[in-house]
């Protein structure tokens, strides 16, 4: 069993990456990577740790986005309230969907999450008065943050907004890492490998999985809220099942063996999308080929790539094995 690094250390790394990013790329892209990083981390919790192949995470991303979008477009509530409502709304949706889906296993669970995602998508599509339907929810404002003693932070400033996203990212990262190495995380891990055995040992697999599902839902909702504020419009595609598929891709592309995997996956995905969509309208073709190649030849994702590269270069690996 690997001894894990302390949460503080890991979070420090995440923070370092977050600080470095805007110096290497346009700040809009960096912000988007962090936002989808959060989304991918939540999906990672479910897919990699709990073994729950949820193909419906976009539903919670979307619920969070629409709730926050509505709050920031039509009310004068402060930032924290909007984010909290988004998280709560998404968590509630996750609770309902989770309760109906988690009892089923494997493929059935996956198809149910997919189908619930579709249902929530069509609800958003039809409820035009609130969500704007197909046109999306526009006119979303970024409320100023009042910090007592320090003054007002104007979030229209791209840098300030990035900092907000970075803070949320590191916080979610730390929370998820902590969770994964807590007793809950261990139960989830065990249940992923053999659910019946874990249950027979006295652990409530259902409760653990439901809790993870709700937490992942809430985190996805917060990511959605930030996304809504990024371009000040919440599009209907963000809640469509294709976005759920994208989240799973990010986890796979990055690599399922490490918590950095989903972050790398998000970066690769956003970068590919941002770069390719400008030069070729048919960029999803490249993306599709990319996925196929990863799935056939590089199942461990980018992290496996790094591992292989490292061995090729012949760098001395740190001593293996646990004490």
């Amino acid at each position, binding site marked *: 069993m690997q001894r894990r690094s302390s949460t503080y250390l890991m979070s420090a790394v995440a923070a370092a990456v977050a600080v470095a990013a805007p110096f290497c790329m346009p700040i809009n892209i960096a912000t988007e990577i962090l936002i989808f990083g959060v989304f991918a981390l939540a999906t990672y919790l479910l897919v990699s740790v709990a073994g729950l192949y949820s193909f419906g995470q976009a539903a919670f991303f979307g619920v969070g986005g629409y709730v926050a979008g509505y709050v920031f477009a039509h009310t004068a509530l402060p930032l924290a309230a909007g984010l909290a409502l988004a998280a709560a709304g998404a968590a509630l949706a996750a609770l309902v969907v989770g309760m109906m889906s988690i009892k089923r296993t494997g493929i059935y669970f996956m198809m149910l999450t997919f189908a619930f995602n579709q249902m929530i998508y069509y609800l958003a599509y*039809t409820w035009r008065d609130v969500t704007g339907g197909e046109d999306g929810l526009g006119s979303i404002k970024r409320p100023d943050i009042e910090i007592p003693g320090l003054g007002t932070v104007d979030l229209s400033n791209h840098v300030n907004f990035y900092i907000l996203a970075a803070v949320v990212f590191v916080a979610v990262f730390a929370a998820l890492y902590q969770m994964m190495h807590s007793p809950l995380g261990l139960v989830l891990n065990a249940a992923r490998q053999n659910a019946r055995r874990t249950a027979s040992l006295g652990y409530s697999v259902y409760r653990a999985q439901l809790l993870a599902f709700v937490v992942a839902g809430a985190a996805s909702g917060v990511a959605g809220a930030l996304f809504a504020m990024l371009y000040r419009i919440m599009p209907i595609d963000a809640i469509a099942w294709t976005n759920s598929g994208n989240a799973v891709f990010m986890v*796979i592309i990055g690599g399922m063996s490490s918590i950095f995997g989903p972050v790398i996956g998000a970066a690769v995905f956003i970068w590919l999308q941002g770069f390719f969509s400008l030069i070729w309208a*048919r960029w999803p*073709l490249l993306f*599709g*080929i990319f*996925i*196929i190649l990863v799935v*056939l030849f590089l199942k461990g994702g980018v992290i496996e790539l790094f591992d292989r590269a490292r061995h090729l270069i012949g760098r001395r690996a740190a001593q293996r094995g646990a004490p």
Partner: protein
Amino acid sequence: MTSLLAAQLLNGLAIGMIYALTAFGLSIIKGLLNVPNFAHGAFYALGAYVCYGAMQAGLSFAPALCAAFLVPALAGAAVERLGVARLMSGPYLYQLLFLFGTALVLEQVIILVWGTVGLSAAAPDWLQGAFDLGFTYLPKYLVFNGVMAALTIAAVWLLIERTRLGSQIRAGIDKREMAQCLGIDVRRLVTAGFALGAGLAGLSGGLVLPLLGASTTMGSDMLSIAFVVLVIGGLGSLYGALAAGVLVGIVQSVSSVFVPSASTVLIYVAMVATIMIRPQGLFGER
């Protein structure tokens, strides 16, 4: 009102047959692979476009429909051989994602070949026009659609239930390892089954071409509906998809009379209701 309802019922029946045919193909693949085919919508779209292309090249409707079946079937066989079979041994997540990637690639290739504009092809002259039933009009093509779908389903049923190959397929679905022990080449069977399923999707696409035209989003639209049909019918049941498909078509059409904007949501509500009341689907077994 009753005349309007009757008209919508007929409309829903015809569309439902298309859903049934497509979902039937999906059901066969699901049975053999135990993985939902995320590329199923793409095969459906491919069938429609190939049918269009065949007709543009001068073929009449009948051979074009055959092409609509064959090309996706071959593509399905290739996809299965090159990718799915290789990923059989690992967690099914990879097969899923492979199929997802395949769907993306197929849909983009379609755009590369045929462009982004929606395409239409007219049905042959003898199928144009409508029957004036007095209380409503019934387009002739809708009737043809339903009949063709029914005939195809019947043919496949015969294949599965009454032929040797069919019994092998059934064995492969029910008890894969046992079938292998009995000397049945399950791998080839799976490829054949996948090809059949993909071909059925393609044929649906071809049938639907004069009705709805071919468009770049038709694949994704059909994929979600096919999944719903599968869940409502029951994942374990091969034929559940048939009844469920027709049911979904009718629900969608009839509800558009009362709540036009919500008719698609209703399909999902129906799915949720089915799961809650009868989790194994209408015809599935626990």
